[in-house]
């Protein structure tokens, strides 16, 4: 048997790697074991061991490829390619995918991922965005064959109408689920005219079935979406990491419909109450105006009454004055009558009527003494009726 030809180390390592890749494990290798000595260097390179009672194998992954943080003691199933690294001569499995084995590992993985995403601020309440109050265009990411899909549409139809729904059919479990869902988010973000809000939903399932909704990729797609996201996954009690990242977290697919739109009956009631509020405010204003008017009327009446009283007072004063004046007039006219009578008694005409006469000289001067005229002088004798012109014939 001839001695084999000497190979360079590079040739030897290359040859082994080719044999592993092409002949021994053409589909890669799947190993189920416990994790040990898990560590991450520079935030980029991940190293851990897979071990059982008798053997140990080294595993390597980039942080980009292995998103799920692991922990020593976790039971996992690793898919990868066995390889000898030329530079170190070290044999390890380059990890493509890690699945958790058993409920315990799944729960632990969930918890580790939750902590990682929380530390990165994906669940921060202050980045939650409001969804439109009355959405008109909705992007729905779901399996169109699922009960979740039909439940969501049924409840939505019960509550609200006129919504345009763009449905993106995706796998919600299995190996394509993460890529489908992440792709659907990218699609809706690239077509903003289709959706002003995105709903991601699926029905309940075991923790294993909900894997995609607990994956970092989907969580980051929800987080990065420029369109706000409602997530409703599983039953009431299920929680997924996508729920935590969502802008609006719904407990079930039906609840997602409830959180998405109002109920038309509630809105009808609200409209009714709007109209009532306006009516009441107007009625109140009208009533208060009527009240003010009544007040004014009363004030006016009071003014009129006051003016009237003043007028009455003046009138009665006036009346009193008039009465006083009258009695004074009466008194005065009595006095006048008396004086008139007295005056009349002095009237010379009355004396003349009794037979007396008044004798005047030619100048009209009344004669009281015979000596005051000469004999022969002309005199006038005034009687009660008429006057005699006479001549003095003698004086005695």
């Amino acid at each position: 048997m001839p001695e084999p030809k000497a190979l360079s180390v590079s040739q030897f390592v290359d040859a082994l790697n080719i044999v592993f890749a092409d002949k021994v494990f053409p589909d890669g290798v799947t190993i189920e074991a416990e994790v040990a000595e898990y560590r991450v260097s520079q935030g980029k390179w991940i190293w851990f061991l897979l071990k059982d009672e008798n053997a140990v194998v080294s595993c390597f992954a980039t942080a980009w490829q292995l998103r799920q943080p692991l922990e020593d003691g976790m039971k996992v199933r690793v898919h990868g390619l066995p390889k000898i690294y030329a530079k170190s001569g070290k044999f390890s499995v380059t990890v493509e995918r890690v699945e958790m084995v058993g409920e315990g590992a799944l729960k632990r993985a969930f918890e580790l991922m939750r902590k990682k995403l929380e530390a990165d601020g994906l669940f921060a309440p202050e980045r939650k965005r409001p969804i439109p109050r009355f959405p008109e265009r909705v992007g729905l990411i779901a399996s169109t064959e699922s009960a979740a899909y039909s439940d969501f549409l049924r409840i939505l139809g019960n509550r609200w109408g006129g919504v345009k729904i763009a449905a993106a059919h995706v796998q919600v479990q299995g190996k394509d689920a993460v890529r489908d869902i992440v792709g659907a988010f990218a699609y809706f973000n690239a077509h903003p005219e289709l959706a002003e809000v995105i709903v991601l939903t699926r029905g309940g399932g075991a923790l294993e079935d909900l894997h995609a909704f607990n994956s970092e990729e989907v969580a980051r797609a929800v987080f990065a979406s420029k369109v706000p996201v409602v997530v409703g996954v599983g039953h009431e009690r299920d929680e997924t990491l996508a729920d935590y990242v969502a802008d609006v977290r719904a407990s079930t697919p039906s609840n997602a419909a409830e959180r998405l739109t109002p109920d038309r009956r509630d809105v009808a009631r609200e409209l009714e109450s709007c109209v009532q509020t306006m009516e009441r405010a107007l009625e109140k204003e009208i009533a208060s105006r009527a009240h003010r008017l009544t007040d004014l009327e009363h004030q006016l009446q009071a003014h009129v009454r006051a003016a009237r009283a003043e007028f009455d007072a003046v009138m009665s004063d006036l009346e009193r004055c008039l009465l006083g004046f009258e009695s004074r007039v009466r008194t005065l006219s009595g006095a006048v009558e008396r004086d008139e009578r007295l005056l009349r008694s002095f009237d010379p005409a009355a004396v003349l009527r009794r037979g007396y006469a008044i004798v005047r000289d030619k100048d009209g001067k009344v004669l009281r003494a015979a000596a005051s005229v000469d004999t022969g002088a002309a005199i006038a004798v005034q009687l009660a009726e008429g006057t005699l012109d006479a001549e003095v014939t003698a004086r005695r």
Partner: protein
Amino acid sequence: MTAKEAKKANFAEAFKELEGIVQWFEASEVDLEEGLKKFERGLELARKCRSRLAEVENKVAEIKEKFSDYADGGEAPPEDEDEGQPRLI
């Protein structure tokens, strides 16, 4: 945009305007002249909104796309995996 779509798009606006008017009524001394004008506008908006409530159907259109094609374009993987190889383990 069709007339019907325009009507739909206005629902949120109409509702918001109506709520604004109601707030005005609730907040301040109501001036009767202004109030009557606003009341009339409010009734019109309420009527508009009610007619929108009568719409019962939602339209569903399924997108015919392979979404996994859109999934790429995230972070690129590190260029050289060997960089990460430890010197010794």
